[in-house]
């Protein structure tokens, strides 16, 4: 890829309960990439995504956004990412429309019509005024994913977005990820399934599990 890196990680390390999840993580992600973060359960995939999303600041090392340290580019960075976590961030007693209105307010120029169009794209036509507690798990996931349709964020950080989706939903989401990358966006995604996207790149967190010697160096060296 000839495009300059959007996000660079330098020597990123994260410790949880006196155990290093990963250390010396060096990677760079450029526009136009779809990157799958790999690793078994408990290997720190979610933790890494939470760090990248800015939810957690419990790490060592450096993150750079377009060449600048995150601390000095924080505002620009916050405006450029969309994070969809393990928990969908959807209120069950509100309708999909009411839920998405809050997310739409984060950027200017998103009308109710735009939101309804987004819901239609995710096969939720006719459900815009149904309270979310009456929707199935897959439909709830679709409500959360409908944010992708109107978001202007350049970087999508998606934690297990395929959970509970049916086959056609998975295929549709894969298409959307590929489209976003083709349009100059960057997608960082975790999933236990194989993702069917052209030019899929991957980062395996198991490559960055430190050996005991390295841990000693990190503490005493």
């Amino acid at each position, binding site marked *: 890829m000839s495009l300059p890196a959007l996000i660079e990680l330098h020597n990123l390390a994260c410790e949880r309960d006196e155990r290093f999840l990963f250390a010396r993580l060096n990677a760079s992600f450029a526009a136009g990439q779809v990157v799958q973060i790999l690793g078994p359960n408990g290997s720190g995939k979610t933790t890494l995504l*939470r760090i990248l*999303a800015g939810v*957690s600041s419990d790490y060592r090392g450096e993150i750079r956004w377009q060449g600048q340290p995150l601390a000095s580019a924080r505002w620009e960075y916050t405006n450029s990412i969309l994070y969809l976590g393990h*928990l969908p961030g959807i209120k069950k007693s509100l309708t999909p429309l009411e839920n998405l209105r809050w997310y739409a307010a984060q950027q200017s120029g998103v009308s109710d019509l735009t939101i309804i169009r987004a819901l239609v794209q995710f096969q939720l036509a006719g459900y815009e005024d149904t309270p979310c507690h009456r929707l199935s798990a897959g439909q709830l996931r679709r409500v959360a994913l409908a944010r992708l349709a109107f978001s202007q964020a350049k970087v999508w950080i998606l934690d297990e977005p395929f959970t509970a989706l049916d086959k056609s939903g998975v295929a549709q989401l894969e298409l959307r990820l590929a489209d976003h990358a083709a349009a100059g966006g960057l997608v960082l995604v975790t999933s236990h399934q194989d993702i069917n996207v052209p030019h899929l790149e991957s980062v395996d967190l198991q490559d960055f599990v430190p050996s005991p010697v390295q841990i000693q160096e990190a503490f005493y060296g």
Partner: protein
Amino acid sequence: MVKSLFWATFTRDLTLAFRHKGDMVNPLVFFLIAITMIPLALGPEKAVLVRIAPGILWVMALLATLLSLDNLFRSDFDDGSLEQLLIAPYPLSVMVVAKVLVHWLATGLPLTLLAPLLGVMLSLPASAFGALVWSLFLGTAAMSLIGSVGAALTVGLRKGGVLISLIVMPLYVPILIFGASAVQSAALGQEYTMQLAVLGAALALALVMAPLAAAGALRVSVSG
């Protein structure tokens, strides 16, 4: 844009408050029942009730507020909205103000409006109703703000209910003292503007400090 996310948070929380009427009514029912019990337990002697009415009304209003605090950020934490609040391109402390405002509209304001009715039940003299409403108006708002810090600190814990009370109670003491004192003075036909001024000052201080403290506490609770 800055204005719109404040209002988006405000309207979303207000809608949620109305969808969960049970949560909203719970502190009010507690207030109502607890105060109704007092004359039944102590007997309807007017002299006794007048003497204790200001204190009882204020203590019960404080406990009712305390009862409602745990819900302030809990459901947001459970469904992931709190993470989204944290990373939104908008100052977190301002969104905390929106949430606290809704909390006060749903608990503090109804408590304030219900209090005169219960004052009648405790034979509070008519001269004290103004002081009761004004002191609770200022006091419950300050208590919602201060309480948000306690709620933010304990939201990451599985059972934070008791801890909130322990954190927040000492901070409520000055508000309780001046609030009850305002009503007491008014019942005795004395001037009570000084107490109201102190409550107003407490509210102003809480409005400046509490949202910042709560925002900081939320970051710690969520990232841990």
